[in-house]
């Protein structure tokens, strides 16, 4: 008989059960399991937070792109978030995100707003929809996939910086000296003479960082990303890896100001701390964050990227 996650909600905080009959896919998905498993309540909270976040982002896009249709898609996302919150039969949780992923894809492709961020949103929502009806094994598979997404985001972002080789000598950051997003960090971290030289440099020529501080800063970027992925991969360091990863995401977004992506990433990272995810109070996280960023956007129009 298949165990169904219904009103009883599967018990959180228990160690994930390993069945000897697990096939390769289940072993692969369970590689990143923390010491305790996520329950259906935690997954419900994750889905609600994601859908609420999508709604806020679309409303922001409506304002930023002067595109009223995004208000509709944002409203649908919030309605889906509410639906997930009140859905009594947790095994049917996934049917709500299916509506949302279709909306995101349709509106995103229609308005060329389907960047990496929207693609990740769609993947997560589609996975939840596919897992319906949600059973305990499917719940664990879903959590495993999302944990892998976190590791992949860090690892591949770091590796791509290695592939393109623009961080070994700081050539990418050097060209960002005049950017309002990156400029202030570079002005803080680099010697004053180097900052001046970069600001006066001919952008048609070579621009690289030459100071020790600059090279350390530049190489620290991809090393930190790859390091976070490794910390999350290794069971012994997974606990500290969660903390370091959240701090890294916050640090990156303080500079890049891609608030939407950062928030989504942190919500997914919570799967490495299921205990936090199980608490209903966690739902305050996206609400508080969006309230703060909403105020920041009013005070600082165009300063944030969503």
């Amino acid at each position, binding site marked *: 008989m298949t165990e169904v996650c219904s009103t009883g909600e599967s018990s959180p905080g228990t160690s994930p059960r390993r069945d000897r009959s697990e096939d390769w896919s289940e072993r692969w998905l369970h590689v990143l399991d923390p010491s305790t498993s996520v329950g259906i309540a935690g997954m419900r909270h994750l889905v609600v937070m994601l859908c609420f976040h999508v709604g806020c982002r679309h409303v922001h896009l409506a304002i930023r792109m002067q595109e009223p249709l995004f208000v509709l898609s944002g409203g649908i996302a919030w309605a889906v978030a509410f639906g997930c919150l009140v859905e009594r039969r947790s095994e049917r949780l996934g049917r709500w995100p299916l509506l949302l992923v279709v909306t995101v894809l349709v509106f995103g492709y229609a308005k*060329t707003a389907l960047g990496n961020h929207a693609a990740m949103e769609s993947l997560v929502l589609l996975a939840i929809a596919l897992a319906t009806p949600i059973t305990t094994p499917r719940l664990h598979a879903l959590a*495993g*996939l999302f944990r892998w997404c976190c590791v992949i985001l860090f690892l*591949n*972002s770091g590796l791509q910086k290695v*592939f393109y080789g623009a961080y070994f000598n700081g*050539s990418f950051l050097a060209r960002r000296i005049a950017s309002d997003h990156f400029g202030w960090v570079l002005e803080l971290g680099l010697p004053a003479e180097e900052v001046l030289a970069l600001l006066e440099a001919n952008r048609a020529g070579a621009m690289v960082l030459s100071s020790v501080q600059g090279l350390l800063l530049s190489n620290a970027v991809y090393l930190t990303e790859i390091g976070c992925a490794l910390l999350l991969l290794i069971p012994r360091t997974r606990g500290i890896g969660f903390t370091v990863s959240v701090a890294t995401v916050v640090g990156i977004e303080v500079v*890049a100001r891609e608030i939407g992506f950062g928030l989504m990433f942190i919500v997914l990272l919570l799967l490495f701390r299921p205990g936090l995810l199980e608490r209903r109070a966690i739902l305050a996280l996206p609400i508080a964050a969006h309230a703060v960023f909403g105020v920041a956007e009013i005070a600082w129009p165009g300063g944030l990227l969503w």
Partner: protein
Amino acid sequence: MLSRVFATVAGLLLVWPVPHYFATKALVSDPWKNFGLAMYATYFEVGVGVRVRDPGRDWRELPEDEASNRLIGEFVERRRTRGKLHRPDRLAQALSTLTPEREMQILVTTRSLDGRAGVMREIDRERYTFLF
């Protein structure tokens, strides 16, 4: 079954940067696009120049205005994602309504950061000619 789908998706995402790297080189597309997670890894610029003439006469640059800039901007955005697969045929058709000349040339130049040298280099240049 579902766990196999998820595990396969995770595996594909894990290895995707490698084919993505080579695909962006081949298609001359923006590494920031197509979910390669190469945001902030490099620079990529697409430049579009448009000139028009009646056959047998001298070329002149199409003057910039709000309408043409918007059309070119939309083309550039799609060109970034699809690379050379995205031709400027529709752009040319749309721009032809803004000018009386019957012949149009669209020059698309692409520049990218040479990370090791620290300079922006032209990596592709394509000229498209249209007759209306």
